[in-house]
């Protein structure tokens, strides 16, 4: 395990934290994320399991995370970066991990993050005719949205 940790530490700008056995966090700055992913693939992290976003609204940031897996080392490495919440843009990772393409499409719809280099960024994916705030953002109030758009249905036998 320490062998692979040392290799990751060799990637420029990577801050490595071992969470527990088989789980490593690799924190990088926004401008280094694509080169880090490229280097991670070179050292054996062949699989992107999931790419998604955490809305850190108090810090006015979006945390983008990529869960990678190496069959050789049997380790998950989680590459994380933080971008500004205002006019958020990331670069596509789909040339390195093809499965990133659809995760990025989902991210752009659910969080309103533009993905440079991904031609499907911004195209409708799961939602239909959505005109409100991107729904996975913390400032989107799903209860308020539901009360404004749907009629409350009383259960049978319940007093009106």
């Amino acid at each position, binding site marked *: 395990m320490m062998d692979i940790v040392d290799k990751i530490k060799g990637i420029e700008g990577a801050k490595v934290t071992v*969470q*527990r056995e*088989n*789980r490593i966090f690799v924190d990088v700055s926004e401008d280094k994320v694509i080169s880090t992913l490229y280097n991670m693939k070179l050292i054996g992290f*062949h*699989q*992107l*399991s*999931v790419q*998604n976003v*955490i*809305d850190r609204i108090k810090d006015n940031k979006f945390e983008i*995370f990529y*869960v990678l*897996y190496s*069959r050789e080392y*049997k380790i*998950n490495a*989680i590459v994380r970066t933080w971008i500004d919440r205002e006019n958020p843009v990331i670069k596509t990772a789909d040339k390195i*991990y*093809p*499965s990133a*393409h*659809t*995760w990025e499409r989902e991210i752009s719809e659910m969080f309103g993050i533009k993905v440079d280099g991904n031609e499907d960024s911004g195209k409708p*994916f*799961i*939602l*239909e005719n959505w005109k409100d705030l991107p*729904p*996975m953002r913390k400032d989107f109030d*799903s*209860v308020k949205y539901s009360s404004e758009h749907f009629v409350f249905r009383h259960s049978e036998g319940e007093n009106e």
Partner: protein
Amino acid sequence: MSKSYELFIGPNHPGIPGNFSLKIELEGDTVISAKGDPGYLHRAFEKAMEGRYYIQNLALIPRICVPEPDINEAAYAMAVEDLMGVEIPERAKYIRTIVLELARAANYTFWMGGFAGTLGLYTLAQWSFGDRDYALDLFAEICGARVYHMYIWPGGVRRDLPPGWEDKLLGYVKYMKERLIDYDNIFFKNVMFKYRTKGIAVVTKEQAIEWGATGPILKAAGVAQDVRKDDPYAAYEYLDFEIPTLTDGDSWSRAMIRRWELENSLNIIEQAVKKMPKKGPVWEKMPNPLKWYVPEGETYAKVESARGEHGFYMVSDGTGKPYRVAVRGASHTHMFTIAEKVLIGQRLADVSHILVSLDVCPPEIDR
């Protein structure tokens, strides 16, 4: 001059595995492009989880995969336990393994029926749907519910097994092993099955790795990768089992891998029942649900589903509700990165069995 046309398969089509749509463009009966169209099952589970207490989410998460709900309970529970630093009791580890393998066996039985149906072999479909019910009856005895169990929860399992349940379970295993011979005779040794699926929709080893395949697609291409072996959870590290692999990567190989995995699951259940501690706690006590604060942090917990790697990325801010939960279902990658590519060049009549051989589960995509 050739002229192409568009065709929708699904959301209401017997050849689509669930509420999902596929828009294909054809020339004659040859597919020239395929695009998945998700969203019919989107119920905003990830958003809904942020507004509910940890224990309340147990009612939501099994619904992320209808045919195999228990993987969600296990991955969710493991993520919470990871953040809280909880080790579950030994007996609970074995019970989780048994439940997960029973769910896997039920899923493969269900899948077999769907797959045979797409090839017009409805006898197997009727047999296997009926046989799946015996597994659901066993679930009903341990938790009162047939499909959505809410049985695996943080700290272990909800309650101990009822008296005599293990004997009934072993009876089911014995019955299914005998039944597999019938399945082989009517379907897996059937030349029609072989003719229709051999060499169809090949995913090579290199492609499977490059495209991020997991589960039977990867195993059918010759890669023995399985979370149960590579990052063992529950009681898998105490059990002896092999990961089946084939090399052709076609629709036939993926079907055969699932058939062997079903047998594998039955063997694992037998071993787990034999090795399981006969007494002991099944739940590491958790706090009162309203004061159940999970320490701040983030983690990724994963299990092996019938389709591949299934994971939960969980973030806690130290309160009683998760700050963020992201679900990773194998079908997300298998549909958009793999199915859309391998369907090109195939014939219309093969589209349905190719999709079922890739086992795309729409609720894993929509969530």
